[in-house]
């Protein structure tokens, strides 16, 4: 029983090694070695990502015409 539990633990532990990175790192002002600015890194957004995300999120929601026109479900 202990052996089985150890094998299961080992299998689960090794499974974690197969995970892919979900995020692209931004290092030394570059993405994968290519220099670029982050979209939110400007005076317009106070160099704050949260402000840009909020603005873009509001813009995203405007694409939903049901919400824009205050649609009520029948």
């Amino acid at each position: 029983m202990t052996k089985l539990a150890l094998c299961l633990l080992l299998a689960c532990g090794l499974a974690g090694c197969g995970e892919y990175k979900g995020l692209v790192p931004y290092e030394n002002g570059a993405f994968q070695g290519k220099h670029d600015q982050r979209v939110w890194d400007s005076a317009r957004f106070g160099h704050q990502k949260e402000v840009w995300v909020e603005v873009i999120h509001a813009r995203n929601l405007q694409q939903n015409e049901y919400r824009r026109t205050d649609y009520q479900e029948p």
Partner: protein
Amino acid sequence: MARMKFICDVERCIECNACVTACKNEHEVPWGVNRRRVIVVNDGQPGEKSISTACMHCTDAPCMAVCPVNCFYKTEEGVVLHDKDMCIGCGYCSYACPFDAPQFPNSAGKEPAAAATDLFGARGKMDKCTFCAGGPEENGSGEEFRKYGRNRLAEGKLPLCAEMCSTKALLAGDSIVISHILEERAEVRGYGDEKWGWNLAYGRPENAGADKK
């Protein structure tokens, strides 16, 4: 912030080509180069569908994997961009892309067979949809506009093709939000919840191609 994606709601696209026109006008894309275009499936037949297509900014982008000079990169928002100063115009990305997104100015207007035999490097620098996120030049600069077009994301705006879409068939932005918009629509009308091209573009995990240095 989730990954930026496009959805074309094929039940709504009416092949008006406003997205194509908006893109060309916004970025002053040269004659013959179409970063976005509308494809009609089963033209003239019952069940005809129109699909607006461009670079889908794939999760595991094949263009990034095949580029011999490694000119592609992916931003934190999942937008696939490239450096035109590094591009040698070999055309490998064009062959690898399942959406035929990469465009070459010097091959513009030619039949596909003729363009495919253009000599190595004679095609010019590759051009494609940037998700209105510019390129490696300084955000909002003249140089960025000249090479890659306008950087609307850095202005807090979404791609103009989607924002100009008269029927709101084309959705662009945060994948979670636009997925919910499509789901809500499908629920109201009772059909058509298919996200065209999503399995092909986003159905695979991030790969080492995105980490190339």
